[in-house]
């Protein structure tokens, strides 16, 4: 589903060369690596937020390297949520649908569905200032999934959560992925998250992505 080949990304003084990996359809891939190793940069490149100097990014065989972020159809859950302070929870869930000019009844239906899915029904008409960390991530997740993307990119979505919320979120992510069949790419540096979620386990070491799914469980590969 997601295929990177020979991807070359420059970000300031930092560059990744010849990044290549693939995530099969419907898989939950976790990309691990040290802080500053460029995990987020790769995610941004996939989302279309960072220009790729060379190489191809393909979604289901289609080359999307030159497509705009808006055209790639990826749900993006950034670190800390990056919610819009001027909007209510409902407006977050509706935002992408409104941009896509869905009509009102369809939008309402979808919002109700999403709210139930991520568990924010009781928050719908609240503003987002003052939401807890878990609630924030649920809203961000709902927003990213609202327009039924085929791919979901998550950038350390659980890093700022307390243990209890983290457990809840992991369950939620698993369930959603199972229910929707979305192909997920989850960036984290937390090992236990990876162990709980990963179908495909990727590691970013010295600028190269390595698939360690086969030996992940046994080895303690760094």
């Amino acid at each position, binding site marked *: 589903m997601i295929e990177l080949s020979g991807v070359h990304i420059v970000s300031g003084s930092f560059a990744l060369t010849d990044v290549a990996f693939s995530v099969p359809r419907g898989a939950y891939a976790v990309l691990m690596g040290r802080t500053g190793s460029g995990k987020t940069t790769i995610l941004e490149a996939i989302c279309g*937020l960072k220009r790729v100097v060379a190489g191809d990014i393909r979604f289901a065989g289609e080359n999307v390297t030159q497509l705009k972020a808006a055209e790639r159809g990826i749900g993006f859950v950034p670190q800390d949520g990056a919610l*819009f*302070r*001027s909007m209510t929870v409902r407006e977050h869930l509706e935002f992408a649908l409104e941009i896509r000019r869905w009509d009102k009844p369809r939008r309402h239906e979808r919002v109700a569905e999403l709210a139930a899915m991520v568990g924010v029904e009781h928050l719908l008409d609240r503003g987002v200032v003052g939401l807890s960390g878990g609630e924030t991530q649920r809203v961000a997740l709902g927003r990213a999934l609202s327009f039924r993307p085929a791919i979901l990119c998550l950038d350390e979505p659980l890093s700022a959560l307390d243990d209890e919320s983290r457990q809840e979120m992991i369950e939620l992510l698993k369930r959603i992925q199972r229910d929707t069949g979305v192909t997920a790419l989850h960036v984290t540096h937390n090992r236990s998250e990876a162990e709980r979620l990963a179908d495909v386990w990727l590691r970013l070491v010295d600028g190269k992505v390595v698939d360690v799914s086969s030996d992940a469980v046994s080895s303690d590969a760094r």
Partner: protein
Amino acid sequence: MASNDSPAPRHRVGSDRWFYGCLILLGGSYIVLILLTLLADGVYVLMEIFLHGQWPAVRNVLVSEEIWYATKLSILSSTITTVLALWVAVPIGYLLSRFKFPGRALLDAILDIPIVLPPLVIGVSLLILFKTGGVISNAIAEKTGIELSMPIDFPYAIPGVILAQFLVAAAFAVRALRLAFDEIPFRKEEVALTLGCTRGQAFWRVVLPEARGGLLAAATLTWARSLGEFGPILVFAGATPMRTEVLPTSVFLQFSVGDLVGAVTISLGMVLIAVVVLVVVRVFGHRDLAGRALR
């Protein structure tokens, strides 16, 4: 454990009272100075009225058609200036906040010019600009027969008042808005992009609403700046009563004819207007923002 026989002697610290005392003293002296000047204005007028029988002088100001016109002109011209300034300052502020491009430092420096130039110089320069413009358009008219004429009069006219205010106030609006945009993480715009927005949609639907507070601050700053603008207006737009006289000009005119009571009365009026407007804006702005957060 290491070989420490006795526990380290307790680290003693002095009282924090000094710190708080200094904070209050240094900061407070400025606040007190501001309040004292206002208080002095008020006391002076009251004393002149009740002890020196100067009520007629105060009344003259209050019933003066010129002063009421100046008040109206001040408020309306500042409002127009604010709207115009925001239209210019939003794009420049956003540009400076989001993009790195060659000449950015130069642009930044140019935007400082209206802030650092003496107000009088701005007025004189505007006057010269229009003089030169007139000379050039006359020359063009002579050579080619094409009459290039300004559809509206600027020097010594109301549009001149607004232009003079705009030139200075817009620079302040840019500064304020740039800070406001700086505070909004770019990540939010990126998220909006992944959700299907164009850059324009992301700006209008995410950035601008989120910059409300900054816009409001920029607007009040611009408005207050324009209300107090004096030097360039005096030079470029003149001080014609019932035409281009704004409140600061009125204060100056009253002062220059030795009518101190009148000058102070108008000054107090300006303080009142400024306070009312700022309070109204703050209250409404905050209520709106707070309301959204709690809904």
